[in-house]
Structures are given as C-alpha cells and as structure tokens.
C-alpha cells in the first residue's frame, strides 16, 4: 500500500490539525508570457486617435516595455489563484504572531470599503462633495479618543512607524515651543525596531534603558536617566513580552516633573481596549496600529494605519490636514500655523480607517469583551505550556505570552526550529524575531479570534513538538516537512541577491521550466 506509507510520512500520528494535499505548481508570470496574448480589452476610443510616436517625438516616445508579460485573463486567474494556495492565512487557522495581533478580518469591512461613493472619491475634491468621507473620519476619531482617553487625534499616519515619527515630531515641536527640543529619547531594550529607527528621523538620539529582572522598568534607576536632555520616554505598554508596566503612572509623573513627555507605542492596545485608557494613566502621545487592534487586513505586509492620539498641549502641532466639524459640516483644516506639517500626501489611508470604524461599530462598548477573550486565550495557552517551555519572565501575561527555547536548546533545537515544525502541525509560527531581552524567544499572541478548540490544538502541537525535541531533534531541526518547499537558503539569497526576473536567466524557458518550483534546478 504505497499510498498509506506515503501519507504516514507526513501525517505523523501526533499531527491532527493538518494533512497534505496535491498542490499546483506555477512558474513566474514572465515564464508564461507569449507574444500576442491579451488579458484585457478596452472600450473603443471615442476621440480621434493619436500616434504616441508622433505626438511625443523621438525625445519622449517609448517603444514598449521590455519583457512585460502577455497572458490571457484565465491565465491571470489561475496564476494568482495557484500562488494564493501556497500561503497560510487567518482565514485558514490560528496565526499566533506575537506583537502582530493577527485577528479575524471581518468580511463586511471589505464590502463597505468597496462601496461606490467611498472607494471612488478623490482626495482633492471639494469638502462639499466629501461630507460622507469626512464624517467617517470624524466618527472614527471620536471612537479612538474615547477608547484611548486622549484629547485630539491625527489620522494621517499610514503605519505604526509613521505614527511613531509623527508623535516624536509633535513632542519635538512642543518642546521647541517651550524653548528647548532636548536631545534624547529613552527606549527600553524590549522595544520594537521601529521605535529607535523613528527616533533618528525625528532628529533625536536613542538612549536604551535596560529592563530589570522582571522585564519592567526599574523605577529607581529610571529617575537617574531622566535628565534635562531627555525629551521623552517611548514605551510599549503592555511591553513586547506581554506584561503591563506596573509603574507607568509613576513613570509619567517622573517625566512630567522634569519637563519630559511620555510616548506610548499602542501596538499592543488589544490588551487594554475597554479595560484601561492610556490618557488616564499619564500618556501624552501615542499611536495605534489599526491593522492590529482594529482588525484591518494585513494583506501580506500592509497596508496599515497608525493614527496618533495626543493630549491638549500637543494638539496645536498636529500634522495637516485635520478633520473638523462645525454644526454638522465637516471639513479638512489646513490652516494650522503651529503644525509640524505634512507626513503624507492627501488625507491618510482612508480605506483602512474606514474598515477600523466598521470594526469599532460592530463591537461598540463590547470591545471590552474582545480584550478579555484575547487575554484569556494568552493565559490559557501559557498555563498549558509553562511546564514544557521556559518562561523567562513570569509576571502575569496580558494579550501574549513569551517563552524562551532554553530547554529545547539543550537538544540543539532552537525557537526557529520549533516555529518551522509548527507548520507541519498546521499552524503559522509565533514571532521569533524579538524582543531582544529574551534570547530565543517564542512570542505567542493568539488574539480573541481563536476558539478554545483551536487553542487546544495549538497547545497539543506545542507539547508534541517539545517531546519531539527530546526524542527526535533532527525531525524538528529539518522541519517543515509538509510544505511544497523546504527551508530556504536565506544566506545564499542575501549573498548574491536575485531581486528580479531577467530573460537571460531563464532562456531555456519551456513548459517544463514553468514548474521549476517543483523540479530540482540542480
């Protein structure tokens, strides 16, 4: 029974959530191109035709784009449908990426974002014919301010990192208005990489402050850090190890007492929404990642939106435009003399902001329940894994739990190996990249979107892998085994980068070559 054995290979008895199934190969679209094929046709031109060559002249005229693909509509459908089947996705299962908050992306949000009259509007059209769009932005602003407890907002930033930069520029403008922009921004060593990177663009220096043994800011030596040079502390709360910063309010007081401000990276707001408000515990400025906490789809890496919320003192400096309302009339306000200026053309990622409002309206005050479920899931998983995985910081977990691979390392198995093996079990790996204060981190954030059943299957998979790490480490270190391609040589990829298709490179392109993804090229 050849087939039985063939399957046995991949569906180890321990693996319940996934099997293997036939999967289409597909070459690059350029390898499928044949001169003369068309993928689209247009209505006939209703004005006199113009020959580009004569109209533009030799100086500007172009022949045609070298190497551009020529395929039919059905080939485009098949190409991208086949490609899509090689991806994992929230729609397929749990996606426990710590710090990324991969939650359910409601379908109705996609529907409303595509409505004619919203998707079709031009950002420079008169406010008079943009009232619907402006009201959406204004309604979202109100919701975000209520959830964060802040005073004013800018919806302009299109990602968390841009929100950070915007917030830092606001701090700078405020301090400058007070006479001294100061030099440094304090950042805990547990911070996400965008924080220090944003600080530099804002023209500040980064001063890293070490977390104490409990993964928290040591309030005592923190006092020493806060000198006259310090413009602000940039803190992520809950931190990237999923722990709430106990002394955050006191920290705010210390900063304020020295004329410095408190910036909160709100990427982990999924642990707080409806429970507590940054505005209440002393935060002066913060950003939200709507593509995390507010469910807008990640789409394979973006888009996002990183609106910034501030206290009154910072409002005059907000970037332009700002959405305003005066007795029922909405407008874009550009006349803001103290503004830091523009951080992006037009009025932000409207399509993402719109989805975030749809998400908020679906929950209303019930958003608290989502937060509770997210924290409950994280603690449930922690409870069932803490006996087999090392817990470097054992303070109470909020929305995520962070383990280390300390125990598995003894068998030569590291966090990346465990992550890859999770793939065979039908899950997307957790985050392995950071925080830096944990070596070999397993950063697990289930979000509220996971059922008890899915959590139980995940726990089972993680326990089974822990066992495999001891009994059969090689199996784990060579994982994944169930995927159409195995671990890729990222070192070679970086050493001599191939960043685009070139005709040369694929001269012998035949129907066979098309399936290069499956036939050894060697």
């Amino acid at each position, binding site marked *: 029974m050849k087939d039985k054995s063939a399957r046995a290979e991949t569906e180890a008895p321990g693996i319940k959530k996934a099997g293997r199934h036939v999967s289409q190969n597909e070459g690059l679209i350029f390898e499928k191109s044949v001169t003369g094929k068309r993928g689209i046709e247009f209505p006939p031109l209703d004005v006199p035709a113009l020959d580009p060559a004569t109209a533009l002249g030799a100086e500007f005229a172009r022949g045609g784009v070298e190497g551009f693909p020529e395929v039919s509509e059905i080939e485009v459908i098949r190409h991208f449908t086949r*490609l899509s089947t090689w991806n994992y996705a929230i729609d397929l299962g749990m996606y426990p990426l710590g710090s990324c908050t991969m939650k359910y992306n409601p379908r109705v949000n996609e529907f409303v974002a595509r409505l004619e009259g919203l998707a079709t509007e031009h950002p*420079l059209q008169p406010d008079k014919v943009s*009232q619907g769009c402006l*009201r959406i932005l204004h309604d979202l602003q109100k919701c975000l301010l209520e959830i964060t407890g802040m005073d004013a907002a800018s919806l302009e930033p299109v990602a968390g990192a841009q929100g950070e930069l915007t917030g830092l520029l606001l701090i700078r403008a405020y301090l400058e208005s007070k006479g001294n922009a100061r030099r440094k921004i304090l950042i805990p060593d547990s911070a996400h990489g965008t924080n220090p990177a944003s600080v530099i663009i804002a023209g500040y220096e980064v001063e890293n402050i070490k977390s104490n043994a409990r993964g928290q800011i040591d309030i005592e030596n923190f006092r020493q850090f806060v000198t006259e040079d310090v413009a602000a502390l940039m803190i992520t709360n809950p931190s990237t190890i999923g722990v709430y910063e106990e002394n955050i309010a006191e920290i705010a007081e210390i900063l304020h007492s020295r004329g410095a401000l408190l910036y909160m990276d709100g990427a982990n707001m999924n642990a707080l929404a409806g429970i507590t408000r940054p505005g209440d515990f002393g935060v002066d400025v913060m950003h939200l990642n709507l593509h995390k906490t507010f469910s807008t789809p990640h789409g394979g890496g973006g888009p996002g939106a990183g609106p910034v919320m501030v206290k009154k003192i910072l409002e005059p400096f907000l970037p332009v435009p700002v959405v305003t309302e005066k007795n029922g009339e909405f407008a874009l306000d550009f006349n803001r003399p103290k503004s830091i200026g523009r951080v992006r053309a037009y009025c932000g990622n409207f399509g993402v902001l719109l989805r975030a409002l749809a998400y908020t309206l679906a929950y209303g005050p019930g958003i608290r329940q989502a937060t509770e479920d997210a924290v409950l899931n994280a603690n449930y998983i922690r409870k069932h894994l803490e006996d087999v995985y090392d817990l470097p910081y054992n303070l109470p977990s909020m929305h995520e739990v962070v383990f280390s691979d300390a125990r598995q390392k003894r068998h030569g198995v590291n966090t990346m190996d465990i992550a890859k093996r999770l793939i065979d079990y039908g899950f997307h790996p957790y985050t392995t990249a950071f925080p830096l204060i944990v070596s070999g981190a397993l950063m697990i954030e289930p979000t509220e979107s996971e059922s008890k059943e899915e959590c139980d299957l995940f726990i089972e998979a993680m326990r089974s892998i822990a066992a495999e790490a001891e009994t059969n480490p090689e199996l784990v270190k060579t994982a994944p085994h169930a995927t159409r*391609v195995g671990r890729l040589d990222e070192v070679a990829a970086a050493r001599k980068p*191939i960043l685009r298709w070139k005709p040369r490179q694929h001269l012998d392109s035949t129907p066979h070559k098309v399936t290069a993804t499956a036939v050894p090229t060697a």
Partner: protein
Amino acid sequence: MRYLPKSQSERQEMLDAVGAKSIEALFETIPAKYRLREALKLPGPLSEMEIIDYFKARAEETSRGYTSFLGAGVYQHVRSVVTDALVQRGEFLTSYTPYQAEISQGTLQAIFEFQTLMAQLTGQEVANASMYDGSTALTESVLMAERLTQRHRVLVARTVHPEYRQVLATYAKHLGIEVEEFGFTASGQIDLASIRADALAESAAVVVQSPNFFGVLEALGPVAEAAHAQGALLINCITEPLSLGVVRPPEAADIVALEAQSFGVPSSYGGPYVGVIATRDKFVRQMPGRLAGETTDAAGRRGFCLTLATREQHIRREKATSNICTNEALYALVVTIHLCLLGKEGLRELAAQNLAKARFAQEAMKAIPGVTLPFSGKIFNEFVVEFPRPMKHINERLLAEKIIGPLALDRYYPEQNNRGLLCVTEVTPRAEIERLAAAIRKIVAA
C-alpha cells in the same frame, strides 16, 4: 458577539483552567484606579446590516453623479473585477508579512513579480516591495541619496507635487537636510539654468518629476548630466506611471520614486496607495523597504524569501535605512495583477488612449474664447488651463453643474490664481469633456 468564537461556559472553563477566580483577576496588574468602571461611550454594537446601512448612507453624501476632472497625483483608470476577485482571496488578504517563507510562497513570488514589473516599467535595475505612497517614497529617496553621497543638501524642482515636497520638508527638517527649490520656464519644465553648479556640487541629489505636477514631461538627460557632473544624483518622481506605457522610462535617473495608484488601485479618498523606489543595483544596499529574492531549498527547488534584511529596522534598529515596517503589500499585489492583465499591449493601448483624450481636451479648452494653455511643454493626460476668471469663480459654477472642475493651482502656487490643472483619462467620456467645455464657455462669457 458574532466575531468571538466563545460561549460563556467555555470562558468559565478556560478561566478555571487558568486558575483565575474571574476575568478581572487577569487584569490585576493594572492599578485599580486606572481600570474603567463604566462601559466606553461608543456607538454600537451594530449588526452587519446596520454597518452596511451606515456606510451606504455615507456613500450618498459624496460625489456620486458628478464628473471629475481631477488628477494631480491620483488618477481614475479602468479597474478589472478580476483583480478584486483575486485580492479578496483570504490567502492573500489575511496573511501577514511573509517572514515564514515555506508557507508564504504565494505572497513572496507575487512580490518578486512586482519588483520585476516595476524595474521593467521604470527602466531601472531593481525595485523594492513597496513604500507607503509616492510622497514618502520620494522623501525616502532623498534620505537614500544623502546616505549614498554623504551630502546634506537637495535641490527640488517646484514642478514636483507640492504635497510631496511638504512631506519631504517635514522629514528633512530634523535630519539637517537642506532643501532648496528651483523654478520652471514658460514650457512648464524645470529651469535648469537656474541651478548653480556650486549648489549642485554640494547636493546629494536633484529632484524632478515627469510628467511633472503641471502634467508636462521633463527632459531628464540634461539634468542628469549636470547633476552627475557635480557628483549629485538624479531622483525622478512619477505620480502617473501609466505614462510609461508610451513615454521613455527615466533610465537617466539614479533613483525613481513612483506612485503606482494608477494601476488598479481605487482613489479611495487618499489611500491606501502604493509607493515604490527603483534604482541601480549598486545602490540596493542603501535602498529602504522590503525585498524578495530568489533562492532554493535543500532539495534545490526554486523558492523566494525576504532578503537583505540587514537594511531594515527589525535588524538594525536605529541604524536602519528607514523606519518602515508595514508597507502596502496588498496594493502592490493589486498593481501586479492589474499589470499582468494589461500586459505589454494593453499598457501601451491604454496609455495611447489617455494621450488622445488629453489632446482632445486641450483642443476643446483652446477653442474657448479667453481660455489659454499657459505651458508649451508636451503632456500626457493632464495640463494647466488659464481662465479669464479666478478658479474659485469657475469651479463653484461647475460644481453646480455636477462637474468637479480643474484643480485650482493657487492652492499650492498663490501666484497662479487663474489657473487650473485639468486631467482626463480613458474613463472620461468625450461627451463629458464636451459638457465641461460648454459649461466653461458659458461661465467665462457670463
């Protein structure tokens, strides 16, 4: 709540397993005084049908039924339902950044194809996986040029999109980058003569846009020569990439900052759009943004993965080339699918249609007594029109006719207060161009 896959009894079961007396217990690290006692004052909860009703009501409060002649960096073009059907597949829509290559090959191969298409289109050697939009792509291009040249000054043409220049100013301010602007001539093209050689010698780059904000094509050869002669780079910005279907690509440029919205991305009141940076191979390690590269697995199978990550913030932190992390991947996919549909022929045909429509509109405007076309340079699908009356006067009356008229230039160029930027594309019916012309004729005659 319909999005939450838990019953009350399951919540209790899980709480018991965790060993917490209540859900509140899980939040005890938050000082009690900061924990909310009342529910947030938010609208909702709303059912799916109520959410749809709310947004349909908003959609009724916009420009439906109006004909728009706005461009200025955001263009209305044909979009195929095929593209939308494909990007809505959950496997694309609800996946994360493809850090885990073995279960992200779909996204990774698509990014690789996007990079290739952008390089082919711009005539550059390499392109990245996307930036936020054109304005930030341009800004990051300048920062990139600064790193490459170690010079802290940049010369920017006033014919570059004004809002792009505003964004550049915001970023440049605290990085100690000095931004100097230079003007344009009667043709609507840059005034190359106005650039002093010594200024060039201190500059990281000269920044131009083609087609520029006035819709006029710039000749890149001369400015590239001048810049290179003084060790400066040429950055070319493109807000209407469809022009590249018929217009010679900016090979002379060292860095191209492009906004790809024209390729299947809805105008959506300002975003999401898709920025791209394309450049020469030798500059790739100073380029910001993600990159997908080709490689193989242990069995020799071709595969793709994110590469050259040492440029990025999650590895290099404060030493990174940029702070960008989340980009516009889903819309880069839209652009990729759209361009695959267009293909070599379709792209050219579509661009040629825009050229023809614009010419038709130019003739229609010129035919109106008192209306002139101030700039003599060659255009693609938009151009500046000068009226005998202020734009405010013209546009208010056009709006009454359900026409969103040319963009008033004085919004950005106070001195050009009787001028408007008019855009027509393949989706602007001839009849609407004629209706616009008739309406303007009435208005200026009145």
